[in-house]
């Protein structure tokens, strides 16, 4: 494993490096799903590199992101993190993005999310997190519910999909929600 911060059952998280930029661009270029947002947007390696450099400059940044890698072969399969960090209120928004498509729905995202939540609640000692998911993205909504998030409501009229206005679902999670979900998930994984 390369420079791991936290290690899960099958994945680990580590800082993003400039050398990850091309891999992230490749993952986005191969996106097959169209329901995550209004549409797919290719992001090139130059943009990823700039983002990685800029978000590692400050001691108290507004976002912290991780590379998610497979333990078995160090393959980068996506990234997760927190954005809109409020260091005074001790809150943030969690985000994740995984690919390629054939690696989805195998539990890697949940494994990685529990590592991210461990970082947020037990290392940064954040108090609460939120997650915002475009309503057509039912797969992510189901995933965060399984990970312990609770539905908090919706932002109305967030964007257009198939000619109609769609909302964004808003979820929140506190440390006890995460611990309960993680323990239940681990028990299932280890059976």
């Amino acid at each position, binding site marked *: 494993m390369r420079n791991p911060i936290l290690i899960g059952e099958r994945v680990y998280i580590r800082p993003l490096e400039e050398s990850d930029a091309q891999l992230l661009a490749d993952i986005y270029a191969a996106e097959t799903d169209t329901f995550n947002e209004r549409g797919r947007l290719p992001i090139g390696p130059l943009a990823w590199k700039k983002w990685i450099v800029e978000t590692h400059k400050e001691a108290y940044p507004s976002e912290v992101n991780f590379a998610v890698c497979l333990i078995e072969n160090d393959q980068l399969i996506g990234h997760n993190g927190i954005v809109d960090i409020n260091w005074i209120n001790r809150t943030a928004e969690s985000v994740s993005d995984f690919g390629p498509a054939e690696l989805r729905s195998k539990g890697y995202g949940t494994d990685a999310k529990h590592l991210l939540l461990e970082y947020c609640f037990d290392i940064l000692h954040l108090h609460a997190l939120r997650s915002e998911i475009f309503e057509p993205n039912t797969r992510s909504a189901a995933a965060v519910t399984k990970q312990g998030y609770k539905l908090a*409501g919706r932002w109305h009229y967030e964007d257009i999909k198939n000619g109609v206005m769609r909302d964004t679902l808003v979820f929140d999670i506190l440390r006890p929600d995460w611990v309960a979900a993680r323990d239940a998930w681990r028990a299932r994984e280890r059976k």
Partner: protein
Amino acid sequence: MRVVYLTGDRVHLRPLVEADKECAIAWFNSLVPANEVRAAQSLENQVYPYWAATEFTFIIARVSDDAVIGSVQLSIGDWRVVNVRFHMAPMLSDADELRADALRLIIPWLRDEFEFMAVRLALPDNQTATIAAAEELNMVLSVRLREFVPVPGGRADELIYEALNSRWEVPHA
């Protein structure tokens, strides 16, 4: 300066002026105190280029004596949805009631004149007068984020109220 369409019985809203840097504690939306230098930088960022701005700050002043008692920030992404945040001067004993009065000026202006599809307001659940004003203005409680805001002695839920514009007759799934 008085903006005729943003003046109520007790409060009025107006653009920032240079002298506002001298009372930044009353309006500058930060828990870290802003001195005149920081406030002046903020003023400069606010005024130019105004045609491309997506963030606007307006002063909330008392009608009786024009004293600066707070501010309202508008964050406008694509001119469909606007996020509203208030900051009230820390020395006020009736901040909640004055904020409620300011909300009564803001919502009709943004929802009915600008015709935003949604006007969003985030506030802790202990601001009862503002919440009552939001409900009186037909805003709906759209999101409740548990324990999201620190308040004296603990944490409060953050509520997001939305003023939804019924004149937008768009298909909505």
